């Protein structure tokens, strides 16, 4: 696979991390700086969750039982499906099949929108049940994590629109698609964070 020039010249990571020494970097280094920063941010949320659960075990046993689990499951499936569409978009750009790549990007975008709608409905449903960020320590952590994740899905969905525009402009091909791949790995990172958030907030009691 051809080496992306930016991954050789951007001296952020040690030399041993370059593509020459450690292997190909999907996307580009700047997106990985972003991804590692986001992982740190979510890591702090997860640590906060475990500390809060240690001090308020009762709230964290009751809390998940108050949530609309079906909406959480549906959103998990929607995000996993969106990741699949994103992988299919990557597979098709490598074949230079741009119409199919665009179709899969639109499907991933629609999944992102569906996730946002379901999450908005879930926040509304919580509100109808009388649950809010200050209801208990569990709900404070719940809103902190899920709203933050909500924002990430929102701006990544906007990024899909930008990538579709760039694709239509002819910016991506089987030889040069690092911009599209950067979005794909970012989108998968968002999916990965939900894979951790879902059991913590909806399943474990």
């Amino acid at each position: 696979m051809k080496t992306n020039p930016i991954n050789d010249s951007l001296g952020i990571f040690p030399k041993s991390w370059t593509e020459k020494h450690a292997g190909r970097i999907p996307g580009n280094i700047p997106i990985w700086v972003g991804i590692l920063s986001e992982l740190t941010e979510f890591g702090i949320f997860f640590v906060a969750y475990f500390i809060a659960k240690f001090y308020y075990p009762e709230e964290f046993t009751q809390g998940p039982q108050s949530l609309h689990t079906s909406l959480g499951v549906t959103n998990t499936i929607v995000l996993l499906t969106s990741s699949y569409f994103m992988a299919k978009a990557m597979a098709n750009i490598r074949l230079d099949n741009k119409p199919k790549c665009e179709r899969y990007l639109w499907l991933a975008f629609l999944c992102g929108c569906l996730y946002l709608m379901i999450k908005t409905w879930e926040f509304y449903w919580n509100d109808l049940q009388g649950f809010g960020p200050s209801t208990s320590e569990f709900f404070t952590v719940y809103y902190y994590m899920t709203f933050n994740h909500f924002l990430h899905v929102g701006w990544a969905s906007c990024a899909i629109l930008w990538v579709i525009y760039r694709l239509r402009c002819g910016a991506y091909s089987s030889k040069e698609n690092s911009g599209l791949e950067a979005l794909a790995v970012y989108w998968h990172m968002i999916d990965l964070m939900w894979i951790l958030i879902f059991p913590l907030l909806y399943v474990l009691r």
Partner: protein
Amino acid sequence: MKTIGKLEYYLFALIAITLFNTFLGEKFASTTLVTILIALTVTYKGFMVIDHLMELKGANKNLRFLMRLYFVIFPSLIIVSAFY
């Protein structure tokens, strides 16, 4: 280039594991065993996305190591939390 069949297999496996996790959480009391099972499946799901959808398998070994480490550390904390 991945074959189409493989991507679909990963999607169905990920959905099946998600439904299995939810079933465990809904139908069984949150015992240590259930918590450990859920933590292990979360790790497996994470590894699957990292290796096959993010395509880090065979790519940069340091990035892959960091991503996989994340899905070892936090599921381990899930297991630790079962003993609170």
